[in-house]
């Protein structure tokens, strides 16, 4: 009791000190931190959401069509994979820029763990065919991977322009659309195309236009080899090479 009385009388030096010392952050009490929402936030956020949906569709396609992470290019597998891709893509509201972003995301293992060229190409083709825009430009010059099967079943009224090189089976089964490749394409370009136009600014590989049933292929550089063409036209540097006697199928130049 005696001690308690003593305590009451003695002023606490610490309390006194606290009272006298200024809070060094006092000045910030009135500071108004401006953190406004700008349209960029909304754009970036919605881009992310769409990219997640596109990624998910691709992963589902792989789950269904490439269970063992192996995928063989056959008529049936291509048709089936395309149907699966169509199913998922129809649910997404995306733009042409999202397709380009997806192409680059394919090369980033953190974003997409598996890049299987066949299904990836089918999926990108489906994205292009179902895009709202009539003209799609894909700037893929810096892409290290050459995408196969791009332009598959490109429908009439669509124009797909690819900056950079593409892989095998470019523009196969083209259905009246216009495919422009600013670089080179590999083998089996335009195989089985039914109509439309393929324009390759540089060189083209072997089996060009194999089983092609209509349409035109224009090549700015060299055609390494023609396939067995049923119907249609192939031009090499503005010169008609099919139909004609200048080039024969399955002979490589």
């Amino acid at each position: 009791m005696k001690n308690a009385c003593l305590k009451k009388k003695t002023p606490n030096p610490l309390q006194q000190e606290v009272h006298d010392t200024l809070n060094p952050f006092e000045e910030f009490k009135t500071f108004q931190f401006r953190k406004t929402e700008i349209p960029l936030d909304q754009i970036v956020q919605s881009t992310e959401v769409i990219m997640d949906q596109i990624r998910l569709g691709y992963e589902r396609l792989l789950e269904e069509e490439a269970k063992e992470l192996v995928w063989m290019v056959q008529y049936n597998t291509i048709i089936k994979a395309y149907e699966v891709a169509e199913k998922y893509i129809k649910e997404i509201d995306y733009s042409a820029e999202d397709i380009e972003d997806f192409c680059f995301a394919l090369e980033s293992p953190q974003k997409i763990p598996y890049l299987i060229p066949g299904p990836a190409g089918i999926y990108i083709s489906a994205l292009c065919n179902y895009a709202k825009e009539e003209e799609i430009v894909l700037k893929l010059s810096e892409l290290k991977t050459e995408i196969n099967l791009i332009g598959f079943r490109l429908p009439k009224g669509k124009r797909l322009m690819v900056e950079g090189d593409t892989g095998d089976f470019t523009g196969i089964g083209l259905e009246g659309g216009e495919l422009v490749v600013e670089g080179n394409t590999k083998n089996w370009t335009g195989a089985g195309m039914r109509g439309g136009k393929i324009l390759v600014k540089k060189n083209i590989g072997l089996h060009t236009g194999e089983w092609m049933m209509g349409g035109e292929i224009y090549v700015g550089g060299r055609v390494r080899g023609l396939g067995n063409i049923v119907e249609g036209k192939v031009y090499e540097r503005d010169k008609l090479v099919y139909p004609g006697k200048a080039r024969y199928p399955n002979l490589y130049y």
Partner: protein
Amino acid sequence: MEEKRLQAIIEEIWPRLKRKHLYPEIPIPKIGKVHDPLDEGNEKNDGVGLEMKDKQMTINPAFLSTLNGKMAEENLIEALLDHGITHYTFCPWDFQTHLTLYSEAKKVMGDKESAKQAANYFIDVIADTHCVKKRATEIPELHRNLKKGTVEEVIASLYQRIWGIDLGISPSKKGDDEVVRRLARIPYLDRSRWPESIRKFARSLKPLLILEQNEKEARGGKGESNPQGEHDLDHYSYEEIDQGLRDYAQKTMGLSEFKEVVEDFSAELKEMGYGIEGGMGRGRGAPIDADVLFYMKLAENYSIPLRKIPLEEVGTLHPHSHSPWEVGSPFQDIDIWTSFGKIMPGITQIWKKKEGKGRGKIEGAPDCLIIIDSSGSMINPRKNLSYAVLGAACVTNAYLRNDSKVAVYNFSDAPMGGRDVLDYTANREEVYRVLCKYFGGGTALDLEDIMPMIKRKKEMDLFIITDMKITNLETLIGFFGKIQNRITAVHIGENPYAARFEKAVEKRKNINIFTVKKKEDIPHIVLGSIREYFNPIHRGR
């Protein structure tokens, strides 16, 4: 008079600006003439509004007068300073980020000039967007009033879209609208995605930048100046550049990438004092050896402990004079009074000690002979990252920091002339240059080359780094068996020859063997450690 009035405006708004940007450590900006490299013939010199040199911002009064009547002077100055401060506080923040952004842009653009342009535009977009989002700023008003070229017009359209502020830009033509749409999708404020973002930025802007570049060439190299200031190496101090190169070398770990960037910036680096002659490369005129610089900067990230031994001296050491402290130098020599209590290269100073009168034994580091294998089985250090050269470079640093000298014996097939010998020296560049030499071919040592270098010194350490695929390995083992010097042997990777060497010298207490398989193994090398010396318990056994 006019300048004084403008300076008074700065002095009035500066405390508010500092507070707004959370007190960055930047000196008060000045009013004065600025250097405009793109517009040197123009007497008016009114193209650039802001210049930044080594954290000092200077506002150009001639530029301010061009916007007379369009914008209040105070607001104009504030907008320029907001922009300038954000370069220090957000983007690019440091030299390493600047280099990273540039190198990513170059991957897309292909050439140096347009890559620099792309990086500059990107840095400005980030800085301004950050300001608009997080600070109350007059930057939008500034953009509304600036004179614009083709690219600037597109960038202003981008600002309209991503800031949601009308800058008076009319709907652009179809192609430009597509570019703006692409640019608007980039997450500018996400620092972790800047490398990916700048590639996308450069890809979208590439046709316009090429067009701008062609127009500039047609005008004889004269282009439009950036009113918000150019982004060159003037922004950074020598120490910041040094640190930036060090971090960039460490981050990329790629010789070719580092080399490309250093060569692209070689003119600016030389201007800053980077050459290969003298000190850390100060001095003008000499070409920059990017390979040597790469190993030099990379080695500065590693610190190898060096065990000292009692050396006989005539007297004890006492503090004599000051010298700048470098990362990795001993902390015990720091003079805290002249270093203002800070551990920071460029500020911190260490005591240089000098021998005084008297007798006694003090601890110190002896000189070191580095034997490095550059035969065909080793990696060519000028083509790829060589752990052997990196390891030897770290060893060089460890000895030089302790005021010892280093000699180098670089060999492949030495008896056939495949060797380079450097006598004991404290010149770091000379050592590095010999370390970076690559001979290729066979591997054989010539002991006659080494013996004089060892015999000359009473106390010296020996450091050998090789893959041990040496034709006369037995001779080397025999030689090591005879000498008493401390030997640190490092072999790159595991192989039967290394196993044979390890087995042959396992009983020698003066020989320590380390394996380097990856860069992380380098700091584990302890130079000159002798079990007996450190662990007296073992002495009696």
